[in-house]
């Protein structure tokens, strides 16, 4: 891919966009709803191709990809997309429009954000120039294929391109679009933001973390076992690499209770690992995992009230901490369990994570549930659910507090 080729693609998209904006909004939304329904169908060719090809490309195990997709698509549907479009885009009888061209910068290897990031600009009738993620060359071309199957004219409004992120010349052209939808690390997003002009729109999805939260009622007995199974599933799916993967569980209990929670979580992670084996771990990540585990063991040896549970093959680890201090998250199924002095201690326990939170799975708060939910939303959680549901947010989940479709609307653009 050369800068000139990219310019040609953008020019073609601008031309296609003019036709796209002439189409009735509901017709476009219906086509995209059909695309989404295909993806929600396990038997659809693109879904089968993704389940077949993603593991080798990304290092996730086939079991994990299959289950991860099944859980993620469960609440999604074409009908959900129509409802979302009505909610976020309808202006009376008209629908809001997006920008002339939207550049979509994909990142990571988890496919759902890529799918939604490609569909969303089209829903506001903005053609999309999509740069594939280096770690997932599979999803974007398959999404384009499914769009072409449903609506060839709509497919002409999407260009999927690949070039190295360090290719400054290509990146400059890529970032010349009217709107940029960027996913990536905070440093990537900052670098993108620095290159955009004042008239361009940037919709940013940075990296986030998720947590588990246990109230007193779920710190023991059957309620604990059930929650632990849920947290273990949330952790195992996508090998804890997603922003909806819990990196820690905060439990409203004392040190003894915290150890009980850690033990239950360890058992559950061990069990879920048999169904959903962990995938590849790169050397650097594995080194960090080993270092954090050994560091916890050393802290325990030094007399701190820290306990380490770990698989013999190092495929998961649970560290029972003695306090709420946030610690490094090596990911790849490494979970810390922190005690917090409920209920007044919750706010201060979560305060250090404010601004970094995506989802919180909570259980065991009884009548205080609504209040706790409000508390975690106040510190930035955009998805609050029960354990086991973190990886299944609704289609309209306002990731990073942004409306999935509405954030791409051009302010002041005419609606029709």
């Amino acid at each position: 891919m050369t800068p000139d080729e990219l310019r040609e693609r953008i020019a073609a998209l601008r031309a296609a966009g003019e036709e796209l904006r002439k189409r009735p909004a509901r017709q476009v939304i219906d086509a995209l709803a059909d695309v989404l329904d295909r993806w929600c169908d396990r038997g659809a060719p693109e879904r089968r191709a993704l389940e077949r090809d993603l593991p080798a490309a990304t290092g996730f195990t086939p079991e994990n990809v299959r289950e991860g997709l099944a859980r993620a698509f469960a609440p999604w549907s074409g009908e959900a997309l129509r409802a979302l479009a009505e909610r976020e885009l309808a202006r009376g009888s008209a629908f809001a429009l997006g920008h002339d061209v939207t550049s979509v910068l994909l990142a990571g290897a988890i496919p759902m954000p890529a799918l939604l990031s490609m569909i969303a600009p089209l829903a506001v009738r903005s053609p999309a120039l999509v740069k594939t993620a280096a770690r997932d060359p599979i999803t974007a071309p398959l999404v384009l294929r499914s769009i072409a199957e449903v609506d060839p004219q709509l497919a002409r409004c999407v260009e999927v391109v690949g070039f190295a992120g360090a290719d400054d010349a290509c990146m400059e052209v890529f970032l010349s679009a009217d709107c940029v939808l960027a996913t990536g690390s905070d440093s990537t997003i900052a670098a993108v933001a620095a290159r955009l002009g004042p008239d361009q729109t940037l919709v940013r999805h940075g990296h986030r973390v998720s947590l588990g939260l246990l109230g007193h009622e779920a710190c023991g007995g059957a309620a604990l076992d059930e929650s632990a199974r849920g947290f273990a599933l949330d952790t195992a799916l996508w090998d804890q690499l997603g922003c909806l993967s819990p990196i820690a569980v905060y439990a409203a209990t004392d040190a003894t209770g915290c150890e009980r929670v850690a033990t239950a979580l360890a058992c559950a992670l061990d069990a879920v690992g048999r169904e959903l084996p962990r995938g590849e771990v790169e050397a650097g990540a594995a080194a960090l995992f080993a270092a954090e585990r050994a560091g916890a063991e050393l802290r325990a040896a030094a007399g701190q009230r820290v306990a380490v549970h770990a698989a013999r093959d190092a495929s998961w680890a649970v560290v029972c901490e003695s306090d709420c201090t946030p610690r490094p998250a090596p990911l790849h199924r490494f979970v810390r369990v922190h005690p917090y002095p409920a209920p007044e201690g919750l706010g201060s326990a979560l305060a250090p994570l404010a601004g970094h939170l995506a989802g919180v799975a909570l259980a065991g708060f009884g009548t205080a549930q609504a209040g706790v939910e409000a508390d975690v939303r106040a510190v930035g959680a955009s998805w609050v659910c029960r354990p086991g549901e973190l990886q299944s947010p609704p289609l309209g989940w306002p990731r990073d507090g942004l409306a999935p479709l509405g954030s791409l609307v051009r302010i002041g653009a005419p609606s029709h």
Partner: protein
Amino acid sequence: MSGADPARAALDAAVIAWTQEDPWRRDDARFDELALALFAFQFARCAPYRRFCEARARTPADVRRWQDVPAVPTGAFKELALTSFPRERAVHVFRTSGTALAGEQRGALLLDTLAVYEASLHASFRRGVLPDLAPGAGVSLHVLAPSAAEAPDSSLSHMFDVVMRDLGAPYNSHWIAGGALDVPRALRELAAAEMSSEAVAVCGTAFAFVHLLDELERQQLRFALPDSARVMETGGFKGRSRSVPRDQLHAWIADRLGVPPARIVNQYGMTELGSQFYDSVLGEPGAPRRKLAPPWTRVRILDPIGGAEVAPGELGRIAVLDLANTGSVSALETADLGRAIGDGFEVIGRDAGAEERGCSIGADAMLADARP
């Protein structure tokens, strides 16, 4: 020396004696003997380490070879004072630089004597940076790092001050003062070095070199240091606003200072270690660039998951047994990746340049803002 503990004093003396031998000689039997003796000593004197070893069922009674001495992660020094002497006997504390990340906890190495540390650094620096100089020949050392007076807890500043004191010619200088690059001084010394008949070494952190090179570029200046000049750079760019790949940095140094990459030495070291590892390029010109381990150290490249030693050339995490760590713990595992090359090794760094697979925040990034 190390206070009143005769066992420790004997260990210190044995290690210091080894550092003073020339030429370096690898002696596996001697290393094993000293490593096991040091393990027994540290097992007895450092309670957290003892319990750590016991939990792994590795005690001096069971361990028969140095490879089986339990290694502690270097990150543990951020939270624990791992000493094999009473803490009140500490005479010096070196702290890790941490990163630019806000509020990151810094590791600390407590020392009850600087004798072993200095003996080791002396020998390694001579061998790694000045191997082509006759014994006693002077070298002008110019340092892109603050002095030890300005940064008393920096092991790197201490190291530079020691080599300036013991190995440097009368004309040595620090180019970092008051926390900033002293540009006039650097330019003055570089101009003088161009004319000098004496050997010159410009040493410093990689990030400080980037500042210097930026300035030279801004002023459109180039220097042609004499053929005998050499550069030593160390440290990475973690947490910095900018990162320059090592080969690019070396090319940039060559362009602006006139010192070719073959005379640029990278040092791998860390506060938690008593010894340092230098590139082989000056001692073995023409041979593949690799880090050489002093004979009183051993470096292994371990499978990041299983912990077994990996085959030569394969990527793994770097583990070191450093006999110069008499006062703390000798066996350490780093979070750095590397690979074995012949009789040495190569440091790859922590992330090997890989793009992230997910959208969760990794270890350090979250703590950048999250630490209270």
